[in-house]
Structure formats: structure tokens, C-alpha cells
């Protein structure tokens, strides 16, 4: 099904691949994709390498873990017959990119940018609603690499679909979900974190299609804690730990 009112703003990352594969698998196709180019040979944050040796998992929550983190984005777009435009800059906040977004026909844009890149005031002022899936259960886990922190404290992961506003991870939440520990904790960064987000994206879009409107499970996304990029020592504890609290 082509979602006329939904486009996608995608950087060339493993997360974007997970999203697109999930959307194709569940027949929820964005009507247009706006692709952030890769200006240099140096990998940008979020670009995975290597393959995903996926073994089918019985748990439905990991249904979107079957994707290739290295598959070229444009290959997925072409085979799914999704029209796309390459943006003029890898910088999401450049005036040229903002202008393209402003002119986009779709009022809602699924956002999947490069790691650490935040949408600035100008992009947010284009009038578009940016649908982002945060890798963590909101409002408790705002900020960065939160799934590693929640693995340590609660032995679970989370993902939350929200519309972006100027405050980080504080926009109204459409849908949020918790997940059991990833089957392979070594693959969290490029597979299971992306798979959790892709699953929530699919559920949020399905709900929109069924109901015809965007409904919020947490309209007032206040409170919680803001986490910062996890230190490798704590990341190793999250990965190697045998059980939660």
C-alpha cells in the first residue's frame, strides 16, 4: 500500500535499511524517499558494515530483524518501486536540503538521519511532521544509546515512535514498546536496535492506516532522564551481563 501522505528522509545507514525492508515486508510504502548522499568515503555514524547472519526468531517482536545492514539503500528503493530524490547535501540542516523538504508533497516524513545529526530549527519550521523512532522507551530513556542502559537496569530494550519537536526526544509519542534482550547482544548497534525501531515504525503506521488519524499514546512526553553516549566499559557490561536487576 502506498502511503500518499508519508515520505521518508533517509541517510545511508543500517537503520534506514531496516526501516525500508520492514516497510516493504509489511506493505506500508512511503510515497517518496529523500536520500541524504554520502559526500565522503569515510563512514558516517550509523553506517554499518558486514552482514546480518539472520536466524529466524520465533518471537514476533523481532520480526523486522531480517535485513541486510549493508544492502545499498537505492537497491531497496528501486526493487520496491519507491520514487526517490537524492538531496543536495549530506547535511540535513543545509538551506538547500531544508528547501527540498519544505517543497515535499508529503506532510509527514519518516526521519532516519545519520547518527548524532539533529534536525535544526529551520528544518523543523518547514511545517512537516517528522516521524522519528527513538531507540528507547520514553519518557524514561531519553537521549543516546539508551537501549544499553535499559539492558543493564531492566534487562530489556525499547523503542518509541514520536513526532519531533525542538526538545530532544520530547515530542508527542505515537506508540512505544519494550522488547526482551536482543538474541545477539553483539549485533545491537546495527541490527537489533534498528529492528526494534522498525517494528515500532510498522506498528505506528499500521495504526495510522487503520484509524485514519495520528493518535498519541503519550501526548505529553515530559520527564524521564536524558542519557549520553554510553562509555565502552558500561557497553561491555550491557553486552556481557548475564541477567538484569
Amino acid at each position, binding site marked *: 500500500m502506498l502511503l500518499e501522505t508519508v515520505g521518508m528522509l533517509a541517510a545511508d545507514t543500517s537503520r534506514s535499511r531496516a526501516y525500508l525492508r520492514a516497510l516493504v515486508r509489511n506493505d506500508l510504502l512511503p510515497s517518496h524517499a529523500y536520500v541524504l548522499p554520502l559526500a565522503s568515503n569515510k563512514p558516517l*555514524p*550509523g553506517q554499518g558494515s558486514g552482514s546480518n547472519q539472520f536466524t529466524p526468531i520465533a518471537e514476533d517482536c523481532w520480526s523486522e530483524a531480517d535485513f541486510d545492514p549493508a544492502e545499498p539503500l537505492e537497491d531497496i528503493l528501486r526493487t520496491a518501486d519507491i520514487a526517490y530524490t537524492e538531496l543536495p547535501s549530506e547535511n540535513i540542516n543545509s538551506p538547500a536540503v531544508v528547501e527540498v523538504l519544505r517543497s515535499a508533497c508529503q506532510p509527514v516524513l519518516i526521519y532516519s538521519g545519520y*547518527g*548524532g545529526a539533529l534536525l535544526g530549527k529551520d528544518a523543523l519550521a518547514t511545517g512537516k511532521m517528522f516521524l522519528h523512532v527513538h531507540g528507547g522507551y520514553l519518557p524514561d530513556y531519553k537521549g543516546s544509546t539508551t537501549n544499553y*542502559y535499559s539492558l*543493564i*537496569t531492566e534487562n530489556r530494550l525499547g523503542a518509541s515512535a514520536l513526532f519531533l519537536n525542538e526538545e530532544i526526544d520530547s515530542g508527542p509519542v505515537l506508540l512505544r514498546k519494550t522488547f526482551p534482550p536482543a538474541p545477539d547482544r*553483539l549485533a545491537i*548497534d546495527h541490527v537489533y536496535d534498528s529492528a526494534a525501531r522498525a517494528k515500532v515504525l510498522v506498528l505506528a503506521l499500521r495504526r495510522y492506516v487503520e484509524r485514519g488519524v495520528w493518535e498519541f499514546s503519550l501526548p505529553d512526553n515530559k520527564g524521564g*532522564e*536524558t*542519557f*549520553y*553516549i*554510553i*562509555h*565502552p*566499559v*558500561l*557497553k*561491555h*557490561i550491557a*553486552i*556481557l*551481563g*548475564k*541477567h*538484569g*536487576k
Partner: protein
Amino acid sequence: MSYSYCQADLLVSPNRYMYSRFEGLGFLQDYEAMRRACLRALDSVAAKHSICNLLARRAAPVFEEWAKRNGCEVELSFPKGDFCELMVENDAALMSLPDPVFNGPIDTAKLLQALIIDHLENAGVGKVPDYWWKKIVQRFEVSKRMFERYARPVRDGEGSHEKISIYVSLATLAALRYCKTGSLIALNTLIKVIDTLLSLRERSISNQEISDGMRTVLAAELAFVGALMKSRGIACAA
């Protein structure tokens, strides 16, 4: 294998820690060994009178008490010497935290000292200390640097970002907050600040103005991380 996160001078080239590599149990062993080696190197460094060292000595019993409650040890001892209790000037001024609506310039060292003393003398958590803690952590995490002053609290840094005692005070505060709240945000900040300090090598390890501070935060960090690993079933005999 060796612990590689404090090899370069992190005040010159800060670590972003993005998408860090998984290196297995050996990484944690190397981290622990490296920290213990630094702690041992501090054994021979006497302490000079300084607010930083004084506050660290005052904080030490808090960490010892935490270790006792959590069934572990904190390896903390202060070398004998002429170190004596330093009278902190303007104690009352140091103890009062600015109100969050305060819009004037902030002296970072004094703010950190006030927050530490608030932990030692009062609850250490609550609307006002939490507000300043979040601001301080945000500033450090964004740039991995702490400036002597902030023109608008707490945003634009001014002055030097190389006052080492400020980083030791930040580490002391983070350790106290972890003791009080168990917050992984505090522990995360503590480990990163210690990376920064140890990347300075002789400027931090041989510096008598901060040596008690260094001993205290290193010992506390090892106890916290050790207890966390043990609670998660990770055996880390280096």
C-alpha cells in the same frame, strides 16, 4: 590488548565514544588493570593543601560506606604526611547553590564545590542540585570540556578548559551522585571524566594539588564498576 580510551590527550582531542567496538571480556580486564596501575602510581604522590584534596578526603567515607553496603571494598588510603585539614574560606558562600533562575556568570569550580558540599552536608539531590547537575553533565558531555566560567548558565564557556582540579571535582561529584542515586548517567560521566584525567598523564598522576582527589575517584570508580559487573554475573579476574 590494552585500554585505548585515554591514550591521547583528551583535552586536545576529545573522545566521542560513538559506536565503540566490542572487545570482549579482555577489554574489561585491561580497563581494570590500567586503573589499578594508576592507583598504585599515586601511592607515592603526597597531597598538597587544596580544596580539591580536602573535599575528596571528606567524600571518602561516603564511598567506603557505599562499598560496605554493597559487599565490596574500596581501595582507598591516603599517604601519611603533613596534610592537615584546610579551612575552606567562605564556607557559607561555597555551600549555597545558586537558584536555577540565576542568570549571571557561573564560576565552575565554586559551583562544583558547592554541589559536593551539598552532598556531604545535606541530601545532595533535590530540585536545585539536580538542576545544576544536569546542566554540568550536559556541558561536559557535549564538548568533553569544562570551562572555568560559563557566561550564561550553563552554556557559553569562558576561560581555560584545562584546569585539572575542575575535572577532579566533577568526578568527585559524579561519584557522590552515583552513591546516592545509583544513576548510570552519573557512573557514565565518572568513567569518561577519569579517562580525560588519565589521558593527561603526569599532569594528573603526579600532581600533588589533586592527588587525593585522583586517588578517591579512581578507587570509587573501581568499586562501582566492580560491583556492577559482579551483579551482572561478569567475572573479571585480571
